[in-house]
């Protein structure tokens, strides 16, 4: 091709993640040819057999861009986050978990002891009469076996290492990733460090096509199975809790387009440290009730407020975790 420009070196890593973010990278489909024409993938556990040792042997700043997805919840996640930070020029927190803690971050509502008891003793499919729990070291006849240390707290990536950019979403929209990637490849001017990239700068509602009609407020909330959506009116006005008013746009309002309320995976807008606080504020303004009893009755229909408003953002929120 006569292109003598050195290829970009790209790494993708998963911490505490479901794997969906890695799949969103694969979802570039035929654009993958553009990606590999411009970049060498030097580390990607889901797709390539590159060992941690190989990364350790790379010179510092060897990798141009790392897409780190997943939260940091054990010593292995932390070790690789720090290692990749050292080896990488541009560290991107990719997806809701690296950005704000994500779904694994909901573990911050429980203590490590509660989690272990549930998973290794109480869960319906578990039989563990000897109460065997994971140990960081176990000696057997063949030698010593080790496991990463499971932390008490789930952390966002930026609570562990310095992060250059955030690319939100659960998972991020693949089109946005391609845009960001092409911007890096073409050497376009990058936004200031710490920016959220590959997303919009307004709320979901700004893009949402649903009509807002009901000016008089609402008196209760419904879970999605409790009532039929009319398909055209604002979901919040119908009483379905939609995180749109407190969530950054950029995904194309894809949940609402699919007739499901926004769950808030794109996180808050610039300058907002806590998406849940803003959503609580919005909910209180939407409700109509003025008497204490009526308000309590209306709020009874908001099942699990903390889990709903911080579904993707508990470790990154102001209070960060449940007090214990």
């Amino acid at each position, binding site marked *: 091709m006569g292109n003598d420009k050195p290829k970009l070196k790209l790494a993708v890593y998963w911490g505490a993640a479901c794997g969906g973010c890695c799949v969103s990278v694969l979802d570039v489909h035929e654009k993958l040819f553009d990606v590999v024409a411009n970049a060498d993938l030097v580390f990607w556990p889901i797709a390539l057999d590159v060992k941690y040792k190989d990364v350790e042997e790379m010179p510092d700043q060897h990798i141009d861009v790392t897409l780190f997805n997943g939260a940091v919840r054990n010593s292995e996640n*932390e070790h690789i986050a720090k290692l990749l930070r050292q080896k990488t020029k541009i560290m991107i927190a990719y997806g809701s978990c690296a950005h704000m803690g994500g779904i694994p971050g909901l573990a911050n509502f429980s203590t490590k002891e509660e989690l272990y008891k549930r998973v290794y003793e109480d869960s319906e499919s578990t039989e563990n009469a000897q109460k065997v729990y994971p140990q960081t070291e176990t000696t057997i006849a063949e030698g010593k076996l080790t496991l990463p240390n499971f932390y008490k707290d789930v952390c966002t990536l930026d609570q562990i290492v310095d992060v250059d950019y955030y690319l939100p979403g659960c998972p991020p929209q693949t089109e946005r990733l391609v845009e960001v990637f092409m911007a890096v490849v073409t050497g376009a001017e990058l936004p200031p460090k710490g920016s959220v990239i590959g997303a919009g700068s307004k709320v979901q509602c700004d893009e949402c096509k649903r009509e807002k009609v009901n000016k008089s407020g609402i008196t209760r909330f419904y879970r999605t199975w409790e009532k039929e959506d009319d398909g055209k009116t604002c979901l919040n006005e119908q009483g379905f809790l939609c995180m749109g008013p407190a969530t950054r746009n950029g995904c194309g309002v894809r949940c609402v387009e699919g007739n499901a309320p926004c769950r808030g995976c794109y996180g808050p807008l610039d300058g907002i440290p806590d998406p849940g606080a803003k959503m609580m504020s919005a909910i*209180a303004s939407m409700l109509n009730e003025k008497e204490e009893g009526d308000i309590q009755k209306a709020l009874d229909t908001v099942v699990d407020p*903390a889990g709903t408003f911080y579904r993707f953002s508990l470790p990154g929120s102001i209070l960060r975790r449940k007090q214990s």
Partner: protein
Amino acid sequence: MTNMNTEQWSPKIVAFFCNWCTYTASDLAGVSRLRYAPSTRVIRVMCSGRIDPEFIMEAFAKGADGVLIGGCHPGDCHYSEGNYKCLRRYDLLQRYIEQMGIDTRRLRLEWISAAEGKKLQEVVNEMTNTLKEIGPSKIKHVVETIEK
């Protein structure tokens, strides 16, 4: 805001008072020379409806032992509806902080009119005593310390 040992410790309350009622009540308490616990750090806002839940979380995260919100009585809001918004936010926040393992007595809402300097004195004293019973808040420590 660091907590000394318990002997010297006295609670710190961040108080958000609305300009038209509760802040004026605290003025009245002052000019009437009513003595009350020196535990509040008052922040004047134009309306209790201006108090974003974020302010309250920030106060707890920065070391407040309690947060007191003071607004006009229902029906008396200078902006007609702000205090109702405040009440709904407060009720929702109470549910949230309970889920976050925070004693709900650390957050209190009171309607105190401009003429109720006496009520302000009572509320602050009462809340200070309650917080003394509960003890110092550990929220700041938990927020700032990542446990591995």
